[in-house]
C-alpha cells in the first residue's frame, strides 16, 4: 500500500520550519524568543527523524528513539537557557541579547 502523503512533503514541512526557526534565531533580539525559535528548529528535526523512521525503518523505530533523546535534550536546554536568561537579567536588567555584552556578574 502506498502512503497517501509522500515522504518529501513531510521533509519539505520540516525544512520550512527549520529555516523559519533559523531566521528567528538570527533576527530576533529577545533572548526568550530566541529560545522559542531554537525549540522550533529542534521540532523540525524531530519531524524529519520520525518521517524517515516510519517510511524506511518500519521494523525497529530507531529514528523515533533519537526523537526521544531530542525531547530530553530540548527540555534540559530550555531549563538551563531560561535559568541563564533570568540570572543574567538579575545581574543587569536587559533581555535583548545585543545589549548584554558580558556574561560576567
Amino acid at each position: 500500500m502506498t502512503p497517501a502523503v509522500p515522504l518529501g512533503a513531510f521533509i519539505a514541512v520540516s525544512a520550512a520550519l527549520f529555516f523559519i526557526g533559523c531566521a528567528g534565531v538570527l533576527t530576533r533580539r529577545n533572548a526568550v524568543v530566541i529560545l522559542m525559535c531554537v525549540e522550533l528548529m529542534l521540532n523540525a528535526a524531530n519531524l524529519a527523524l520520525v518521517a524517515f523512521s516510519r517510511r524506511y525503518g518500519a521494523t525497529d523505530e530507531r529514528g523515533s528513539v533519537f526523537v526521544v533523546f531530542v525531547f530530553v535534550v530540548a527540555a534540559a536546554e530550555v531549563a538551563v537557557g531560561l535559568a541563564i536568561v533570568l540570572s543574567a537579567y538579575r545581574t543587569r536588567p536587559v533581555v535583548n541579547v545585543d545589549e548584554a555584552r558580558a556574561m560576567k556578574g
Partner: protein
Amino acid sequence: MTFDFLEMVLFAILAIAIVGAGAAVVLVGRITSAALFMAFTFLCMAGMFLLLGAETIAAFQVLIYVGAITVLILYGVMFTPQGSRDYGLFFQKQTPWAIVFVAFLAVPVMVFASSFQDGRPLPRGGDLVPLATSLFGDFAYPFEVASVLLLAALVGAIVLVKRDDEEIR
C-alpha cells in the same frame, strides 16, 4: 463512505498551520503571542506524528513540548519585563468566534465518528513496542546518559537562579 482523501487534507491543514504559526513566532511582536503560537506549532506537529503513525511520539510531544516546555517559556516571559501589556484580555469576549470554531470542528468530527465499522483488530501497542524495544535494548546506555543529562540540567538551573544575598532568606 471512505476517507482516503482525508489524510492528504489533514496533512495540508497541518502543514499550513505549522508553517504559518512558525512564521508568526518569528514575526509577531508580542512575546506572549509568540509563545502561544509556538505551542500551537507543537500541537500541530503532534498531529503530523499521528499522521505518520507514531502515536507514542505524538503523546510525548504533547506532554513534553506543549505541556512542559511551553509552560517554562511562559514563566521566562513572565519573569522578564516585556514591552506593552495591553493584551491581557486577549482570550476573553471571544464567544462568537468560539461558536464558529466549534461548529467548524464538530460537524466533520461527528461525520467521521459515525462512519466507523468493525474492522480487523489492530496489532496491540502500536509503535510503542518497537520503540521500547529499541530504547531499552540497543539504546540503553544513551538512555542512562540522558538521565544524567537531565539531572545535571536540574542542578545547573537551580544553581544558576539561586540568590546569594543573605537578606532574602
